[in-house]
């Protein structure tokens, strides 16, 4: 059941913004099929870290290793083309704002089809069938296939973005506040959808969120960040129920329960 080598290893990752620390000296490993949450208040370096891990911004120090088959690659030591190819086929990014992850001038079906074409699919009939299947999986009526995502609600756009990312069958998905900005009922639906997809596709994921309830429902393990550092790390329910660090205790005690 357990694969013994990590899928991704971050080693002393540091990213500075003109002397100001984005994140400093971050090290951890992610195993296949594991869902890791990164929590902490705004400005604690969560998104900076995610962008470095996902291949968008090289760290100033440290390295990120990704395992492909039996080989481990330092993703920023690869040439640009190889890194891009890896980003396209091995992992995906779900942005907080679906408009950053979708092509708004392309139809809903086209948004999903582009991902398939990017990994080399050319058979139109098969692609159409997969697109329809994915629209259903993310609970978008397949009659909307030719509609522009601009005519979709925020929740539908977010689900379309998830379909666009997951149709490519990545092994690792990065998510930045995937339920941020959605109303509560839409959030619950999206959470359930993500939970089922992660289980069925055996995905590994790194999810940045400031919502501890989302972290509890979706993640296996948590990293708590403050001022660019990891201050506490462990099993999600252990961190939330038995926090050891003063800041984590403050964070968990500040949650309002409905």
């Amino acid at each position, binding site marked *: *059941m*357990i694969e013994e080598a990590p899928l991704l290893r971050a080693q002393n990752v540091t990213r500075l913004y003109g002397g100001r620390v984005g994140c400093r000296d971050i090290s951890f490993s992610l*195993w296949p*099929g*594991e869902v890791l949450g990164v929590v902490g208040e705004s400005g604690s370096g969560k998104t900076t870290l995610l962008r470095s891990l996902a291949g968008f911004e090289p760290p100033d120090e440290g390295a990120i290793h990704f395992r492909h088959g039996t080989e481990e690659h330092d993703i920023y030591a690869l040439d640009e083309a190889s890194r891009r190819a890896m980003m396209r086929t091995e992992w995906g990014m779900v942005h907080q704002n679906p408009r950053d992850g979708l092509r708004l001038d392309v139809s809903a079906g086209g948004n999903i089809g582009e991902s398939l074409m990017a990994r080399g699919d050319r058979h139109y009939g098969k692609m159409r069938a997969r697109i329809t299947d994915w629209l259903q999986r993310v609970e978008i009526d397949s009659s909307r296939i030719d509609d522009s995502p601009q005519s979709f609600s925020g929740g539908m756009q977010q689900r379309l973005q998830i379909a666009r990312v997951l149709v490519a069958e990545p092994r690792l998905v990065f998510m930045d506040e995937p339920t941020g900005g959605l109303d509560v*009922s839409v959030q*619950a*639906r999206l*959470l*359930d959808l993500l*939970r089922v997809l992660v*289980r069925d596709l055996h995905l590994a994921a790194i999810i940045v969120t400031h919502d501890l309830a989302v972290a509890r*429902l979706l993640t*296996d*393990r948590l990293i708590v960040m403050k001022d660019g550092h990891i201050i506490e790390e*462990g*099993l999600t*329910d*252990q961190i939330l*129920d*038995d926090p*050891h*660090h*003063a800041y984590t*205790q*403050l964070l968990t*005690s500040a949650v309002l329960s409905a």
Partner: protein
Amino acid sequence: MITMLEACGLRKTFTLHNQNGVVLNVLDHVDLDLAAGEMVVLKGPSGAGKSTLLRILYGNYKPVAGAVRLRHDGEMVDIVGARTSRVLDIRRRTLSFVSQFLRVIPRVATLDIVKDQMLTRGIGDAEATERAAAMLTRLNLPEQMWGLAPATFSGGEQQRVNIARSFVAPTPLLLLDEPTASLDPVNRDVVVELIETTRKAGSAMVGIFHDDAVSSRIATRVMQLSPRKAV
């Protein structure tokens, strides 16, 4: 006699950093051995650390000292300090925690909640559905409720959904935190029967039950805990 769990030298303190750094000393030098087919009931006044001990055994609380070794895949594994993916694998196949509260994603239907663990463990959909249906029926939850999310159910109904999910395909080790707390007598008896059947089938259990009638019916052994003083 097959040892399923051995906990030794458990010590647990809580440091409340945001409340003047108060240190609560909850458990000190606690040992517990548990064999297959046993039900150890934890006794002691409120604050004696019964729930804390149960949560340490589950890997939910981190002890300051001590080890919790449990039988997983034929070998004894220490859950304290084990890698996350290891702990999760243990929880998926070997160890479960049954509380009186149901914690689920808001809109998931009752039947799907009960099936979920079975699907995760690779049991086919048809079999999972059949077993879930039988268990819900046994716990007197009528079929009209199966398609609904339990958010609108009564406390006792939610509790039974939780029990259904835990006992439909029970793990070799079960930790029970007041699973019969707010049930009516009829359903309490069903649950007591379920616990008995599961234990006799070979599962090992540690439980907290405030109802003495229930605990004397199901306990094969009692473990007494006494409260500690603040340091």
